[in-house]
């Protein structure tokens, strides 16, 4: 069926909403984390149960995208009542089905227990984790079947596209997005409407719209969750962007590692084509638009738009200097807009509800919401969408639930390998583009890693530098050689082979790399080092002056007194009689790790 006007779309939506109503809806999370803990098997078992009891007309069983509290998966939400079960295992399915579906009783054993009050919570909306969130980009994620266009239409799908094409001119669409103040969610924070306007004003009939789905920041998975959980909203948003900028061809550049994201996206593109939302003369207008998929092959630098374009052309993904900007000369030398996934999916609700509505969320300079992937040493691991301007404290303690064991939280790393650390002194800072830059971090794509008091910040900085020096494309010298040298200095420090002069070297090098590198990767690569040096200088000095304790120790509760460690110790610093707890003389220990490897019961504790 080809939808040719807003009226036919409205009619279709009304019909879908009026059609078969199920008594019960079971939503099984099929996000990456949950699938990895066998939610696909759970889905199969539930389906079998429903078939066995011939309840397929009363119960809708839906495999949804990410339901966001990934650390407590697999999750199953049942309507009515929004009752969510956590950590469901294959062996729980029988009891869950019998109790909840057949007997109509809540299975308390699998509910979420609030760590503060100790009470079980039935309705997930009442959980602290969800209560403070505000969903715009993730509006459908976890609630619809990503493979069903009907589900998307029911939730006002393609209405924004219809409005754009039937009612608004491309210029008006650009104006609305400009007025909304939407900024790029992929890192830089460039105003999206301005970007669209630049491409729209560029000369030429052939223009491109590229969706950057090369989510390379380790620890961020919001774009993946959107594509897998709500692919139609990306298709719709790209088509709107195509209309606004005058592009007829859209391309999704996606990581090859995201193999499971590609089938749902392909299905959404096919279904959109079959219903006339893609292809020629969309909504009976002169506008035609099509979407294709290009695979990346693993290169962090391809998040940079010029590098991404070179990769799409079949070349090494090396950046080139700007100007010319892609909006003038991009893919195949034609005017091109590059937007990230999360940025794009914000646009359909902006068109439907207006720029003013969007500005009710967030702050003056950073309107709207931002999705963060909250991970690390924190109780609630998962996807969090909050209005801009929310403080770190709210995200970490109210939504994230603090440290799982009650340890002190030392810092938060934001912005991935390009970002910086935020210390406790800044936990009350509102999260928005400009304040983050001011305190030496950046928004980045939204990875938020919480680190507790046990985390060694020098090793964290070394970890990030290892990443960036490995991912440096090698084109410009400061980034290629500079990051390598910085990594070597950090490696030397961690091995207790450095000197106080190394700290100065790190700072000088870091500043030089930041100011002289060609692209964003190099310009931001020293951030993790410079920001940890600023806030945790004493840890660096511990290594540089070699005052840090590096000795191994023995956990007396685990030690069985087998003497194996004492026998392998090359400096004979381990004492203890047979079958008695052993001790390490810390002043003699050279931290070679021989005892650690020899111990049969893991009683040796690394420094």
């Amino acid at each position: 069926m080809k939808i040719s006007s807003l009226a036919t779309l409205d009619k279709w939506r009304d019909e879908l909403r009026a059609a078969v109503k199920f008594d019960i809806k079971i939503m099984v999370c099929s996000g990456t984390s949950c699938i990895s803990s066998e939610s696909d098997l759970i889905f199969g078992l539930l389906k079998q149960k429903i078939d066995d009891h011939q309840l397929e007309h009363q119960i809708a069983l839906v495999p949804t995208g990410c339901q966001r509290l990934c650390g407590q998966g697999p999750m199953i939400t049942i309507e009515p009542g929004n009752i969510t079960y956590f950590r469901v295992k294959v062996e729980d399915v029988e009891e869950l089905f019998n109790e909840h579906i057949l007997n109509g009783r809540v299975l308390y054993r699998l509910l979420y227990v609030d760590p503060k009050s100790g009470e079980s919570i039935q309705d997930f909306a009442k959980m602290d984790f969800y209560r403070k969130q505000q969903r715009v980009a993730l509006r459908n994620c976890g609630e619809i079947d990503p493979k069903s266009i009907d589900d998307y239409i029911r939730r006002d799908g393609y209405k924004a596209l219809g409005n754009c094409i039937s009612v608004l001119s491309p210029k008006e669409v650009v104006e609305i997005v400009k007025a909304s103040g939407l900024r790029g969610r992929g890192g830089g924070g460039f105003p999206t409407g301005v970007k669209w306007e630049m491409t729209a004003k560029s000369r030429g009939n052939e223009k491109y719209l590229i969706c950057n789905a090369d989510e390379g920041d380790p620890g961020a998975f919001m774009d993946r969750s959107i594509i897998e959980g709500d692919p139609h909203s990306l298709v719709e948003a790209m088509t709107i962007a195509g209309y606004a900028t005058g592009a007829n061809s859209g391309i999704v550049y996606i990581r090859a590692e995201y193999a499971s994201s590609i089938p749902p996206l392909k299905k959404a593109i096919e279904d959109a084509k079959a219903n006339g939302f893609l292809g020629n003369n969309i909504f009976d207008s002169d506008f035609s638009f099509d979407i294709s998929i290009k695979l990346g092959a693993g290169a962090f630098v391809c998040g940079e738009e010029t590098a991404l374009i070179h990769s799409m052309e079949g070349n090494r993904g090396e950046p080139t200097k700007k100007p010319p900007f892609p909006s003038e000369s991009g893919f195949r030398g034609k005017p091109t807009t590059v937007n990230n996934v999360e940025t794009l999916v914000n646009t359909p609700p902006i068109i439907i509800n207006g720029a003013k509505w969007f500005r009710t969320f967030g702050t003056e300079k950073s309107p709207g919401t931002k999705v963060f992937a909250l991970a690390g040493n924190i109780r609630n691991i998962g996807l969090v969408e909050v209005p801009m301007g929310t403080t770190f404290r709210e995200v970490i303690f109210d939504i994230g639930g603090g440290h799982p064991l009650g340890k002190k939280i030392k810092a938060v790393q934001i912005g991935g390998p390009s970002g910086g650390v935020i210390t406790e002194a800044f936990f009350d800072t509102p999260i928005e583009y400009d304040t983050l830059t001011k305190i030496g971090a950046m928004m980045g794509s939204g990875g938020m890693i919480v680190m507790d008091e046990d985390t060694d910040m020098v090793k964290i900085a070394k970890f990030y530098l290892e990443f960036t020096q490995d991912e440096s494309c090698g084109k410009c010298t400061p980034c290629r050689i500079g990051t390598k040298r910085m990594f070597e200095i950090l490696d030397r420090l961690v091995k207790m082979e450095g000197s106080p002069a190394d700290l100065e070297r790190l700072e000088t090098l870091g500043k030089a790399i930041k100011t002289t590198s060609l692209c964003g990767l190099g310009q931001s690569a020293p951030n993790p080092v410079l920001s940890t040096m600023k806030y945790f200088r004493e840890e660096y000095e511990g290594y540089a002056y070699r005052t840090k304790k590096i000795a191994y120790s023995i956990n007396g509760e685990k030690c069985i007194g087998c003497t194996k460690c004492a026998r392998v110790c090359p400096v004979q610093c381990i004492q203890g009689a047979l079958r008695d707890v052993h001790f390490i003389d810390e002043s003699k220990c050279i931290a070679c790790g021989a005892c650690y490897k020899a111990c049969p019961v893991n009683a040796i504790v690394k420094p």
Partner: protein
Amino acid sequence: MKSDILDMSNLCKNKLSELDDYIASLEGNKQEQLIHVLHKAQGLFGYLPHNLQLYVARALDLPAAKVNGVVTFYSYFTEKPTGKNVICVCMGTACYVKGAQKVLDEVLKQTNSKKNDISPDGLFTVKEVRCIGACGLAPVMTVNDKVYGNVDEREIADIISKFKGGHNEN
């Protein structure tokens, strides 16, 4: 050495013809789709030896140096053969702060192999990967396509032993 690269006789004919079919099916500018062709070739052969790279270069009418430049640029492509089982230890930040380094060390110890190299018994290749998006389960490792979440270094010997000998699950 040069003649080895030029010698394509040891490449499986059936796989090459499947690759030919794939290249023939591509629409538009074929050279622009080099990365897709390389994905297909690696999918078929498991890795991209030099003679296969040359084959692709000739099929797409590109210089071999350009193809090799692209292969070596992207971390997804490999020029070395892999073991029967591929173990990937996630070294994304979320996994790292939860002890992925210990997991990696233990995996290397248990498989008696070096990073990115095939193990002496030919059974394993151990790789670091950058984030597989399962941060909720950190630390995470995969063996072939199976994901193991919340990995404790003490469980690793058990996991690996399943793939040793004739008891290969997959």
